[in-house]
């Protein structure tokens, strides 16, 4: 299968960083996922072949890392932290609010318009600025329900552009 030029360049660059080919695997999987939305069977086969691994071995690795997925997520994946520091400052309520607002079940499903999915995640390193969430890779911190509404709205608009 073909990857974008950018991803190909990334792959070629990374290969030069390590004494073994498979060392590129974890970050490259994430970059591939960024491009494709999720790790397709085809992409898994391709990466396995490039790195002299079995597809099984690539799947073993994928399934270990919580950010890697083999099924699509929304264009914007809303990841709300409910770990201890966020818990103390209303993280669970934020998650519940986002879920209701977007009408998607937590950790499964995509909103009808395909824009959002909602995930409950473990600590994202925003403890001193709790409660917090990430939308894809963007951090949003010191959240309130009103702030969440605003943020989600801005992404919805972005999706429509």
């Amino acid at each position, binding site marked *: 299968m073909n990857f974008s030029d950018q991803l190909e360049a990334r792959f070629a660059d990374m290969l030069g960083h390590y004494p073994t080919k498979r060392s590129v695997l974890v970050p490259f999987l994430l970059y591939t996922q960024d491009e494709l939305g999720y790790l397709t069977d085809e992409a898994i086969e391709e990466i*396995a072949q490039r790195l*002299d*691994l*079995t*597809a*099984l*071995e690539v*799947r*073993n690795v994928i*399934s*270990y890392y919580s950010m890697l997925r083999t099924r699509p997520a929304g264009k914007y994946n809303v990841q709300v932290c409910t770990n201890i520091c966020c818990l103390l400052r209303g993280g669970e309520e934020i998650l519940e609010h986002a879920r209701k607002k977007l009408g998607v079940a937590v950790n499964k499903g995509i909103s009808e318009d395909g824009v959002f999915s909602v995930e409950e995640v473990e600590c994202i390193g925003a403890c001193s600025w709790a409660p917090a969430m990430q939308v894809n890779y963007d951090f949003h911190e010191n959240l309130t329900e009103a702030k969440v509404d605003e943020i989600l709205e801005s992404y919805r608009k972005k999706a429509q552009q």
Partner: protein
Amino acid sequence: MADAPKLVNITVNGKKTTAPAGTLLIEACKQIGIEVPSFCYYPGLSLQGACRMCLVEIEKMPKLQTACTTPVAEGMVVNTESEKVVQSRKAMLEIVLANHPLDCPVCDAGGECELQDMTYTYGAAESKFIDIKSHRDEQQWSPVVFFDRPRCILCYRCVRVCGEGMDVWALGVQNRGQGSVIAPNKQDHLECEECGMCIDICPVGALTSGSYRYKTRPWEMNHVGTVCTHCGDGCLTTVGVRRSDTGMEIVRCDNRDKSGINGDFLCVKGRYAFDFAANQERITQPLIKRDGKFVPATWTQAIELVADKFKQVVQKDGPQAIGVIGSNRTTNEENYLLQKFARLVLGTNNIDHHRTADFPAFAKAISENKARTASMRDVFEAPAVLLIGNDPTEQHPLLAWQIRNNVRLHRSKFYIVNSQAIKLRRQATQFVQIPTGAEARFVDFLSGNDAAAGTLTQAGASNENLSQLRDALKGEQNLVVIFGSELRGADISALVKFAAPQNAKFICLGDYANSRGAADMGLFPDLLPGYATFAGAARYQQEWGADVPALVGMDLKQMFGAARDGKLKALYVVGSNPVSRYALDPFVLQAPFVVVQDMFMTETAIAADVILPAAFAYEKSGTFTSTCGDLQMLRKAGDVVSVKSDFEIVVRIAEKMGYDVRKLVPFGKGLRADMGQSRGAQSGEADRHSVWLQARGLEPKVSPFDPLATLDEIQRLIPGYDVSQINLVSGNDEHTQLVQIQNASIPSHPELVVPSNDTLFTSGTLGRYSTVLNSVMERRATGKEVAAD
């Protein structure tokens, strides 16, 4: 060889002991009879430290340590039974049982489960866990492999044996934490060599066998260790049998007994391909052809008919008008008996068998160069191995296992010369690909003919590769040289001559469970047992008390030619299918009187006048000689009433022909067969002996059907076979050397060598009638090799 590691002193539970530096503590404990429990530790596989069952207390270490990953160190003081250790073990079991379904009453492993045993031994009787257990449904991964996740304790033995041991890498671990699960390589199913070792090695009932699951309970079976009936490698397989309507039904084969030359190994055929025994198409009563149709007959009718016809032919047309074809799958005793039957009872040397390797040429080469043959065990220990031709992964799976694991565990060197990119190249120190059919030219090159190199380079290897290989080989002492049927005749001599000076040992690869035995036992028109030519017949005549016919007999193809020409009047085929194997015209068999002993209606059997239903390896005792020359004893496991062993059938035909069977089978004769007194003061010993034999599926040597009496005779006549019979009877392998009786030139007929071309999933006629093998082949997608990790 490196120097022996130095010994270190350790104390375990107050016992002082020593162990070589580097020994793992768990092994050092085992040496002095202290068991440290473990699930994930498995000798020969990589260390895991995962199950935490082997935690022990070591002085000066604050935490408990895993005995399976800790090497012994000087002055180490260990306690494996302290209160802390005992509590830790108990807790570990409580924890692993939390999500275990405890469905032992219906679990295949119930009764032979390591988790059950440990729970019993280390006491986790109380269940503190009251929440709902995690559950996943059982999955079928292949026709023969099922996976039950809830039972799995994640010891990773299956993953390792498949990857490290088999180099198949079909199993992995996916997800993490409580979601961790063993996963097959094709997401919902397996694509692998179907060896089933993952099932054998599973300590619990997580991996179960498609051919055995839910059939019976382990304690309802008798377990009989015998030699596999398929390829020539000679694996021990443990046959589980249970009483049935028609005798003893074979319920499963596995590798519970790991004392054989195969150690942990067993392949798909050894494990699953026993089901042909109960195939509906199996012939279970004698059949006589009347008006072109087979009609069932009694044994008495059939034997009488055969004996009368044979007698008639011998009397009327002379012994040269009758031919005998023996088998690669019958025992040594049966083959030996058959050639004796041909030579003495019928009076002809018209005896042959389906040759899959040029063993006579091999015997000659070994003899001429005073070289030695290698045993299957040697292959695992050799510092270097050279393989020319063959594809052991397909044709000699145990041999492939030995090579792979020698490379992996002993870092042995491994050189391959092959016309195909065979899978074993992944273990090779050097792999040289040569053109198809160029194996002999390669030997020529080895022998010093540099000009031969030019004809070897068309398949990718360079002149430099070839020279490099030759130089490397010349530097290898104690090399084991293995070659396939690609090499025959004088090429074998040249190869042996090349490597013998380096103290090399040799293996000539033949197909089928006892093709080496068939050759050793003299199923040749021009060779007596032990590859003796007729010039040396005196010893035999003395032993047999009868003359060996002087005339060299017809080989298999000549017999068919004679049948076509109307000169062959009778043909006796025992456990062989020459029509199919040599692609011969079955119509030539219309004229002669043809008797076939077999299990199934083969292409040859169809042409028979009488078919005698024969027992197969698992239904009788006797010995097999592996392709390496390892002699092992079969033990009777299964039983089907109404079929008979080939041995018994031959004896009965001879007896009906009026031959004195004492001359054929030396029962009740000779030192080894001496039963002592059956009454009086010594009778106790005799009885004990008898009971002991019977317990091992053997018969006391008081019957004309006793193969052990014939083994005695074989051992007297063939020098290489003079090995410890006690050892054999105890279930051990004994390597036979090709020690020649004489150095006369041994005739070789390379043109008669026809390899079976069986794969990992075929096994001649037996494979055709194995439902399991057929289903495995159907499910198997076509051939893309998976990369190693």
